[in-house]
C-alpha cells in the first residue's frame, strides 16, 4: 500500500481497539511518516475523549430552576396523560367483559322500556276517569 492510501484510512484506523495484522499495519510498521501521522490522530482522539470531562458552566440558577420546573411539568403531564386515557379505559372495559356489558345494557334497556310501558299504561288508565268525571 502507498502512503497516500494508508493516510486516507488513518482517521478510522486510529480508533482504539484491536486491529488485525494486515497491509495497513505492515506499512505503518515500516513507514515513519505514516506512523507519526497515526500517533497524531490517536493523540487527537484521546484529547477529544477527555474533552467530555471539560464542563461548561451551567447558567446561574439552572439547577434550582430545573428542580422546580421539571417536577411541576411532569405532574401536569401525568395528569394530562391520565385524562387522555379515560375514554380508552372505558373502551377497554367493554372489550374485556363484553358479556357482562351486554347483559347490563340489556337489563338497563329492559328497565327503561318497562318504565315507559308502565307510564303509558298508567296514563291510559287515568283517561276514562277524567272523561267520566
Amino acid at each position, binding site marked *: 500500500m502507498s502512503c497516500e492510501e494508508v493516510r486516507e484510512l488513518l*482517521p*478510522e484506523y486510529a480508533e482504539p481497539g484491536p486491529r488485525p495484522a494486515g497491509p495497513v499495519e505492515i506499512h505503518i510498521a515500516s513507514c515513519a511518516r505514516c506512523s507519526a501521522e497515526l500517533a497524531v490522530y490517536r493523540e487527537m482522539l484521546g484529547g477529544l475523549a477527555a474533552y467530555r470531562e471539560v*464542563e*461548561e458552566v451551567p447558567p446561574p440558577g439552572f439547577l434550582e430552576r430545573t428542580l422546580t420546573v421539571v417536577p411541576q411539568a411532569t405532574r401536569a403531564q401525568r395528569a394530562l396523560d391520565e385524562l387522555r386515557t379515560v375514554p380508552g379505559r372505558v373502551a377497554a372495559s367493554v372489550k374485556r367483559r363484553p358479556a357482562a356489558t351486554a347483559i347490563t345494557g340489556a337489563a338497563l334497556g329492559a328497565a327503561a322500556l318497562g318504565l315507559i310501558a308502565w307510564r303509558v299504561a298508567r296514563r291510559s288508565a287515568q283517561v276514562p276517569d277524567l272523561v267520566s268525571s
Partner: protein
Amino acid sequence: MVGPELIERCRHGDRAAFEELVGLTHRRVCSLAYRLVKDRSDAEDVAQEAYLRMFRGLAGFREEAAFETWMYRIVTNCAMSHLRRRGRFGDLLRDEEGPDQAIPDRAQDLAVNRDELSRGLAALPEGQRIALLLKDVYGLSVREIAQELGIEEGAVKVRVHRARRKLKELLEEGERRVGEL
C-alpha cells in the same frame, strides 16, 4: 456516576433521588446541550426538556444500556428538535464548509474552553462538528448518531472521517502559529 439504585428510586417518584440525579448530571447535560445548540439560553431550554423526557422515559429505560449514553441521546434528540423549531437544522444536514470557516476567537464567551481543541471544534462545519462531538467526545455509536440526526449511517461515517482530518489540520495549523510567535 448514576447507579441503578438511584434510577430505581427516581422511577418510584422519590423527590430526593430526582434532586440527586439532576445534581450529579446537570453539568454534563448543560455542556452537551450548549455544545450542540451554541446558545446559553437555548441550552437551558434543551437541558430542561431533556430532564422532562428522562423522567418520563425512566420506566422504559433498559439498564443494560449505560445511563449516560441514554441521557446523551435524549439531550441530542431535544437539541435537534430545538434546532428544527429554530430553523437551524438545515445547517446540520450540510457537511461542507460554509463561507465563514475562519477559526473564531471564542475566548470572550467561553470561559473554560480556550484551548486549541475547542477552537478547532468550533471551526468545523456544523454537520461535521456535531457528528464528531457525539462520536469522539460523547461516545455514541454511528448507529445512534444516525438515528438522532435522522441521516444514514454512511453519512455519519463520512462526516466523522472528514471532521477528524479537518480537526487535525486545524490543530497542526494552530501549533505552527504558536511556534512562529
